[in-house]
Each structure stands twice: as C-alpha cells, then as structure tokens.
C-alpha cells in the first residue's frame, strides 16, 4: 500500500481531500515526511510552505499556519485555521 487518504482541513471546509503518496510539513522538531503506513501520531505544525505528492506524481504546494497533524491508521489530517493552496 503506497497511497493514503489525506485531508487538509480548515474551519471553512476542506482545502483538499483525496489520495496522496507523501506529505511534507514542518513540525516543532523540524521538517517531516509522511508515507503510507506511518504509526498513528500527533504533532504541532509550524507555519511553513508544505507540499504533498498525488498518486499521478504531481506535486501540490500549500502554505500552512500553526496547526496540528493527525496521523491515523488510514487517514492523515492537517488541521489549521490558516491554509492557502497554491
């Protein structure tokens, strides 16, 4: 399994919802990448330019403010009140 469900969520609605191959964000401990099958975990996100790769290998960029990253068994959720898709 190389894909996972990714949800980039803001209070005004989902900025993105679909399959992704990888996700790169900036946590409190530094940059981190998420692939399918990651252990369930939660971390705080720092404001940064982030990106994710779609199954067709295209890269999508987005700017993220302070928020949370929630990795569950089949779902990765980025939660922030400030997200701008590029």
């Amino acid at each position, binding site marked *: 399994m190389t894909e996972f469900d990714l949800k980039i969520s803001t*209070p005004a*609605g989902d900025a993105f919802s679909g399959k992704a191959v990888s996700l790169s964000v900036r946590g*409190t401990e530094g940059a981190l990448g998420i692939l399918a099958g990651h252990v*369930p975990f*939660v*971390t*705080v996100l720092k404001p940064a330019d982030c990106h994710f790769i779609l199954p067709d290998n295209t890269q999508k960029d987005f700017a993220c403010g302070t928020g*949370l990253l929630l990795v569950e068994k089949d779902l990765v959720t980025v939660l922030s*009140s400030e997200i701008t898709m590029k």
Partner: protein
Amino acid sequence: MSANIKRLKARIRSVDSTLHLTKAMQLVAAGKIRKATEQLSNSRKYCESMRTVISALAGSRDCADSIYVTGPKDDGGKTVLIVIAGDRGLAGGYNANAFRLADGVAADEIIPIGRRSVDRVQGHAPEKKSALGGGTTEHFKPEDSKALAVSLCERYLAGEIKRIQIVSTAYVTIMTQTAVLSTLLPLSECVLPESRRMGFREMKAQDTEEKPEGARFMEFEPNAAEVLGIAIPEYLSAIIFGLVRESFASEIAARRVAMDAATKNGIVMKDNLSLEYNRARQGAITQEITEIVAGAGR
C-alpha cells in the same frame, strides 16, 4: 356601518403589509439556509478532528496534571460564559431559549456573541459584560474566534479564569433546534470522559505491556504535554467558531419556520378580514338600496 368598513379596510392593509414583511424574511431565510448548513457541516468536520486530537491528549498520562485538564489549583478564578445568540429577532424562541439557559448559569463574566446577545447583556448585567466578543454571528470569522481563544487561554494560564462555558444552539433539523450549555475548559469536565469512552491510550516507546483490545494508541511529538499546550488555543478557536456557525444555522432555520407560520397565519387573518369587510360592504349597499326603494315608494 361606514366607520366599521373603514376600520376593516385599515386592518386589511396593516395585515397585508405585515405579510409582505414575513414573506420577505421567509424568502431571505430560505435563501441563506443552504449556505449556513454548508458552512455548518464544514466546520463540524474540522471540530470533530480537533476533538479527536484533544480527546487523545487529555487521556494521556503526560497531560494528567496539566492545568488545561485539571483546572487551576487555587479556586479564585472567574467562571466565564460565552453566550451565542442571534443578530435579529423574529426567529421564534431562538434568542429567548439561549438567554433562559444562560440566566441559569452562575457566571462572573459574560462574553456575548451576536447583536441580540450584546444588547441583552448590556441591558441585564452590564457589570458582567466582557470587553471581548461582540460582533455578528453571520460575519464571525475564524480570525475572530482565534483572537478570542488566545486571549482566554492567556487568562486561563494566569489563573484569572477557572472555567470557560458556552451557551449555543444545536442544529438538529430544520424544525428542531436546542439551546445547549457546554464546558470548554477544564478538559476534565468535558473531553476526558469522551476520551475514556473513545478508548484512547498513549503509546510509549518503552511500553512492553500487552495492549488492551479495542484501545486506540497514539504517539505525540515532542510529548503530549507540549502538544496540548499549543493545541488548546487551536481547539478552543475551532470549537467556538463551530458553535457560532451552528447557532447561526439554527437562527436561520428558526426564522424560516417562524416566518412560514406567521405568513400562513397572516393569510388566514387577511381572508377572514376580507370576508368580514365584504359582508359589511354588501350590508351597507343593501341598506342603501332598501332606503332608496322605501323613499321612492312614498
């Protein structure tokens, strides 16, 4: 007789103009309800994800002594109540139900959100009114709730506040809305029971004991207490924004139903008055003819 006809005509005109108003308000509410419920479902999804994270954090061992979970040690802090009500009236019992529930809470400070709520607090308990809040529910933005949440968290950490509660209106269906009182902080009064119900357990690298079946495990980076400290303002902001959106959808739904009922009642009232007016008019004409005929016969 002619005085009665004049009075009936004036009443029909008055009911007619009220009907125009109720019909217009019903149409406006019907137009807004789709957008309001859409915004509600969007913010609900965000709130649910936030609640999952906070439930997992609140149930973890690292956070058991956190001020956010247990509340401040000394009991001197205030109880802050956020009251979300509508921007306008003519929405059935929507505003009154929220205020009735808020009146039953022993709060030291009230943060009103929505014009009606601001007016009510200013009129009934101006000494309790907070400098925070205000504004309208329709144009309440995520930035507004973030600013409010950050300010509340700072005061909570300083020990100024011991409890934060919120009165909002839950949107059940378009016909049913219920005023609800919920606690935002400390988490031991709201999220912790939920966390236990959801079966969250914190996962530790050194954990060797057998994991109980059905439990959900989660890791926190760098650690649960630090994540909780940063996550709480985001959580409060999300919940306040979500409840404002929910209350706004409830207000619109309540107004649509109230105006629909008012329009129906208005139509019935206008029909009855028209019947009465026609009868009176016909009676006057018949009397006039009788008088003319009687006069001609002499």
